[in-house]
């Protein structure tokens, strides 16, 4: 669905990512893991056009979108949900859903909102509450629901379970699987909750210091020596 080749990007003169090669297959869950500061979140931002890209290419469904502005990417079916500030806290849940369908026709917006509420029925009872008053889990679900309203094909999620209880985190992971299985959405996520995320994923990538050190089946990454070295603290494999 999306193919990245030799991507070099960063912020101004500060290069964060070096020669990233990565592929997200359609209909599969792809997860990127890595230690803090490895460039995972910067990579997601680069995909969405929020960083400075120095060289390389991003191909989405056969089209070069390396320098396509974010609002155009939204129209192409790409949704990016940042870790924080991913909903409008001063708007109600209903308004957040309505604004998510800003580029759609009025009738279509209502149809898409009803669809999003079927996927996230937890939101039905809190439609008139301000998003700022929601719990972390509710807010994350709202953010994902807004992506559904926008007719998302590729859903980019930056640490969707950050600061959530294990129970809520599990709920979010289940929803991500449901989005892929029932609604043909391709999720690409970055997660600190690496083990749990890789368990539900098909493809796994590991970033260290702005470079890809592993790319392949997610389950194999769980047993990879670099993953064990960085996340499970098994020493003697490589310095951390």
């Amino acid at each position, binding site marked *: 669905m999306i193919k990245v080749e030799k991507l070099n990007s960063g912020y101004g003169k500060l290069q964060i990512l070096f020669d990233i090669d990565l592929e997200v297959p359609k209909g599969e869950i792809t997860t990127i893991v890595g230690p803090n500061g490895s460039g995972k979140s910067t990579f997601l931002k680069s995909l969405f056009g929020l960083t400075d890209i120095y060289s390389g290419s991003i191909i989405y469904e056969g089209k070069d979108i390396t320098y396509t502005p974010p*609002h155009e990417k939204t129209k192409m079916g790409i*949704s*990016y949900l940042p870790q924080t500030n991913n909903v*409008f806290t001063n*708007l109600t849940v209903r308004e957040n859903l309505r*604004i*998510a369908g*800003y*580029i759609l026709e009025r009738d279509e917006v209502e149809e898409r909102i009803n669809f999003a509420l079927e996927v996230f029925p937890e939101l039905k009872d809190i439609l008139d509450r301000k998003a700022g008053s929601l719990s972390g889990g509710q807010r994350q679900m709202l953010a994902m629901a807004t992506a559904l309203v*926008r007719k998302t094909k590729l859903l980019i999620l930056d640490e969707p379970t950050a600061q959530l209880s294990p129970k809520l985190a599990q709920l979010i992971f289940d929803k991500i699987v449901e989005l892929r299985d029932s609604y043909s959405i391709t999720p690409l996520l970055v997660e600190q909750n690496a083990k749990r995320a890789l368990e539900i994923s098909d493809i796994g990538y590991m970033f260290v210091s702005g470079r890809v050190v592993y790319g392949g089946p997610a389950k194999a990454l769980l047993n990879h020596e670099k993953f064990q070295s960085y996340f499970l603290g098994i020493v003697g494999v490589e310095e951390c």
Partner: protein
Amino acid sequence: MIDVVIGAIVWSNLLVLLALGLTMTYITTGVPNFAQASFAIIGSYIALTLLRLAELHPYLSLPVTFILGGILGLLTYYLALKPLIKRKASIEMLMIATLAWDLILFGITGAYSELLSSITKKTETLFVFTYLDFEFYGLPGRLIVSSLLVLLTILGLYLLLYKTKFGIALRASMENPSLAEAMGINVENTRLFSWFLSGALACMAGSVLPFLQEIVPQTGYFIIVSIFAASIVGGLYHILGALIGGYIIGISESLFTYVLSIFLGPGVLVYSKVISLLMMIVTILIHPKGITGTELWRKVERWLNL
């Protein structure tokens, strides 16, 4: 005393209109517009021109002033700010740009007043509209008109911001422009709207101002302090801050100075702006986000379901 109270309410109403524009452009563009008071004085001169050349009463010329003011707001954004924003200018540079724009507008107003004087063969560098005001059941027209303008503006803004798709997009863009852009909203349009409205409201306020006080091209320099004080005391990050701040500053300035003048003599009246300055400084020192940035206000908002 009743005249002082009426004057205080009228002045507060006008401050609300002026501060609303300042707050809106600050939220959408991130620039405190130092030319806001000059917008008002240009509004005064537009009303004077229509009175002298088209014999249109200043109250009847309000729709024209509104549109011309809106165009002035757009020109300010396009000519003074957008080229700098494109070059990623800092907030300080943008502030200085609005100061420079203010000087340009002041120069144009001064030159225009001379030109108008030569056309009408009257002195137009200093004028009032008080002699044109009407009375309705003993209430002066300036009180009725300025109150109606505030009511219509607040009602219009409420309907726009809470009941229309564009209004919700505007609120979304004000809170988080990058997320709004990710939703496909053209954030630039929301900026243009706020600059149009800012100029329009300021010019309308300016065309009512001569019913309250004498106007000279320099009047803007006296009232800019009150406009900033209203926005800052109410809270620069919330549209309703302009409404709250406008009344607090307007009424404090007028009534507090009046009370002081009873004890200290009429000499203190010229120092009315000191009240605004003090209130602004205290707000910045104690709670820079103003009244609408307080926890108490958040509770009120939840209670009012805003």
